[in-house]
């Protein structure tokens, strides 16, 4: 799915956090949005991922603006995956049940557990596995409906460097299989894995490079 942000401006109260952002995310690419705290990368990611409506400008998904996409819940469920800084696994469900929670077809759950290397933990609860394993389960949950694009906000923020690199490798691997990733991060190591890097500063795109 091609995502185009056109003339995006966003305010929190009187504070302008995005000031005229125009970017294009190509289908299946691994795009990293990097920048310092307060640069606007998380706000941009939220707007691109349909979670936040921009104050001005619009985002098009394969040429359609948000209001033309129909039921937003259905659109998210079939086209978009989310990975957050915190795993947000539901504590009373096993890893497998967490992944299957929003699954349209459960058949993908086991293959994802396998490919993310957590199939042996499928019946464990989130408090019975490590931080890296939890984040892998959260990634599996985002991928369960084979979305066109996965948005990740600081997905390695709570992980050590070894697990963080493991997450980037997973994104790279799935990206090569056709799933797009848009990742907001302040970790510059992501640049080694991403196809496109969008560098944000003070609410504007400072630079886009490959």
């Amino acid at each position, binding site marked *: 799915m091609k995502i185009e942000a056109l003339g995006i401006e966003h305010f929190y109260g009187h504070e302008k956090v995005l000031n005229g952002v125009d970017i294009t995310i190509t289908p299946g690419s691994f795009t990293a949005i990097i920048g310092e705290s307060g640069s606007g990368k998380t706000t941009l990611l939220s707007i691109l991922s349909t979670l936040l409506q921009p104050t001005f400008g619009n985002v098009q998904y394969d040429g359609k603006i948000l209001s033309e996409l129909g039921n937003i819940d259905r659109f998210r469920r079939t086209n978009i995956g989310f990975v957050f800084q915190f795993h947000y696994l539901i504590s009373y469900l096993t890893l497998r049940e967490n992944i299957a*929670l929003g699954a349209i077809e459960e058949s993908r759950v086991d293959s994802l557990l396998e490919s993310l290397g957590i199939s042996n933990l499928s019946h464990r609860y989130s408090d019975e596995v490590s931080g890296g394993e939890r984040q892998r389960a959260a990634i599996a949950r985002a991928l369960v409906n084979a979305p066109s694009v996965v948005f990740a906000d600081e997905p390695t923020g709570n992980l050590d460097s070894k697990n963080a690199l493991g997450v980037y490798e997973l994104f790279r691997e799935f990206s090569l299989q056709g799933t797009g990733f848009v990742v907001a991060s302040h970790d510059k190591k992501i640049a080694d894995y991403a196809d496109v890097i969008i560098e944000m500063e003070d609410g504007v795109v400072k630079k886009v490079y490959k």
Partner: protein
Amino acid sequence: MITPLKALRKNRFKTSLIFVSMSVSIAAIFLISAISGGVVSMYSAMLKTDGDIIVTQKGIADTFFSDINRSLNDTVMNMVGVKESSVLILGAAPVDTLPIVGIYGVSENRFKSYSLKQGSIPSQGEVMLGSKIYETLKHPKTVTLSKKEFRVSGVFKSRIGFEDGGVVMNLVDAGELFHKSASIFLVSLNDLSQSDAVLKEVNLLSSEIEAKTTENFIDSYNQFKIIKTSSDVIGAMAFLMGILGIVSMMSMVVSDRKAEFGIMRSIGLSSSTIIFKLLSETLIIALAAYAVALGTSFGILELIENADKFQGYINGEITVTLMINVLIVSVVMALVGTFLPAFYASRIDPMSLIQRGGA
């Protein structure tokens, strides 16, 4: 079904609070309805015994205050279609150590409706005791009613609590005790289809009396209306308290589980799925609370029924209809109480997950 149960188990403390709150509300509804229903049902059953038609003083609000001339009963007995008519004086007085006891003065033909366990029917200066009061007073040989002593002639058993905990005597003694000729006549008919004709004829006998079919009398009896209304009001308050309890507890539950519902929204689960999930959780609690409240109510009613203090006058009655009605009320309580918090949960913005993450 598994997921709601898991969620409830995980949130044991709050689940228990909701469960206890609902159980108390449902038990309160059961008890107040059963007790008021029992009172109405007992008194109705007493009036219905051999009574197709009831004759009282005209315009009287309570049978206890009714005063009619008992000589009119001879005329009633001879009317076409009347099988039998008995006279009752209804009153209440202290008996020995008991501060208030139902006293029934009855005509000779009414004694046969009491099932004697021992002794004989009372002559003048004698009384017959219900088995409950006989036990409460520890098998007395004599009893004192309003400072006058009566010999106990016999003991009877009645399924009607007011009678089983009461004293039966002949009309002459009751008349002297309560200074009245008669309270009511209970008229039984050969054929119910003749009731209109008999009613008309009885009502023409005197301008001071009023005859109604027992069914009509029970339906329009003010005391029953007061009991029923009081019970409905208290039941409604228990229902509202139950709802408020659920709303407040479920609001806390939703607040605690904000991230869970946020993640559900972010993965595209619909609002209705989230609402349904929370409703099913409360519904499970409601059904469990209903079962516990029903069992507890049966136990409490049994205790009350057998407590000497209440003299058997409180005979709660949990009918199948009451069980079904309270089940419906419990389900409605759960659904109404959960809907608002569930609706709020279904609107939780997944953006809050990003903000929580601190990125």
